[in-house]
């Protein structure tokens, strides 16, 4: 008789139990950064909606921000961290390529020996990680999962760059997921288009830097092309996500897109035809664009400012360097 392997089985559903957040210590106003880009506070506000961006001090890295955000989520969820058996950190700004941030975060929050790995999906990283955590919990591969978007983007910016650097901030947002009696995370729409890899990303490689062929690699983007893709292509993805989830725009409590630029957020909301009852995340105005951290940070802030949104449905969509994108509807904790 051949042996039949036993497979893992999990609960029917997962949901987000609680959120946590950590922002860079310093709120940096536009006036502090306009010199090297020959710009003005008015120009930046008008074109991006950003008033300040938060940036961390030298001693604080993406790792420290991730740990702080995760601890808040654990405290709010009232879960024993030893119960957490999966930690996923979405990041593009880990300046030490290996080991992963996740393994160290898992240890610092008391979750060792949880499975732990980093995800590199830029500004879509958090939504990628939510998709994975949800699937792994329902498959029985994990019971409680800590998903974190963590970035210290101020380590990879060029103060003289006019394309993206002035938008960027440092922070981490965390979501603790676990089993649920009812659906808490919808089907995810996700994908990539590597033919557009040149639209946004680092402007050099580490080996070019090592060989003296390039300065320290920093982020750049083709703003108008990214804008077109982020609004009109992503609007199609968002609409498909709602349809797949069986959700109409008027069923939403909140729309939480990646906080890339307030004009993307505004035009995106317009394309979706969202009613006035839907809260639209605008954390970028004071936090800046924090890549993988932006959606959980914006979610955390919405829930802090409008606790009545708890239990409602939020459409979240991340999009960025790759190009990559991911979207799902979640029940807000």
């Amino acid at each position, binding site marked *: 008789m051949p042996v039949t392997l036993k497979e893992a089985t999990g609960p029917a559903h997962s949901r987000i139990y609680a959120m946590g957040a950590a922002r860079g210590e310093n709120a940096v106003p536009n006036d502090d950064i306009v010199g090297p880009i020959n710009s003005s506070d008015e120009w930046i506000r008008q074109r991006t909606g950003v008033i300040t961006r938060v940036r961390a001090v030298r001693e604080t890295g993406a790792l420290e921000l991730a740990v702080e955000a995760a601890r808040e989520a654990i405290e709010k969820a009232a879960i024993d961290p030893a119960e957490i058996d999966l930690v996923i950190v979405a990041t593009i700004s880990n300046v030490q390529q290996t080991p992963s941030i996740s393994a160290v975060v898992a240890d610092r929050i008391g979750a060792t020996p949880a499975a732990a790995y980093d995800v590199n999906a830029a500004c879509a990283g958090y939504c990628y990680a939510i998709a994975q955590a949800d699937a792994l919990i329902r498959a029985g591969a994990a019971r409680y999962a800590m998903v974190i978007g963590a970035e210290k983007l101020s380590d990879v910016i060029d103060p003289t760059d006019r394309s993206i650097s002035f938008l960027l901030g440092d922070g981490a947002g965390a979501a603790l997921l676990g089993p649920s009696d009812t659906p808490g995370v919808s089907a995810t729409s996700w994908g990539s288009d590597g033919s557009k890899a040149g639209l946004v990303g680092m402007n050099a490689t580490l080996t070019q830097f090592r060989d003296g062929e390039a300065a320290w690699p920093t982020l750049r983007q083709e*703003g*108008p092309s990214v804008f*077109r893709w982020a*609004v009109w292509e992503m609007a199609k993805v968002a609409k498909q996500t709602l349809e797949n989830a069986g959700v109409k725009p008027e069923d939403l409590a909140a729309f939480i897109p990646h906080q890339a*630029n307030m004009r993307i957020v505004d035009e995106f909301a317009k394309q979706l035809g969202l009613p006035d009852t839907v809260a639209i995340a605008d954390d970028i105005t004071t936090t800046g664009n924090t890549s993988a951290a932006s959606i959980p940070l914006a979610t955390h802030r919405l829930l802090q400012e409008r606790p009545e949104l708890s239990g409602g449905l939020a459409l979240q969509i991340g999009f960025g360097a790759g190009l990559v994108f991911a979207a799902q509807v979640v029940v807000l904790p």
Partner: protein
Amino acid sequence: MAYTTDEVLAGLAELITDETGIDASEVALEKSFTDDLDIDSISMMTIVVNAEEKFGVTIPDDEVKNLKTVKDAVDYITNNQ
């Protein structure tokens, strides 16, 4: 049915007004989008996408960079219908 140059200009002026609030009468063929009309790259892209839909044309990203004046855009749309 193909749009005439005048129809494209009038339609484009309408899209520019919708996006920027600039009076349609300001939108003349010789005007530069950036220097005369003060339209930034993000607004320009919004106008381009709306023009694609309105006139049934495709205006690739690389082509948008070549559209310096209103005439450039009107000509491109007219010739690529």
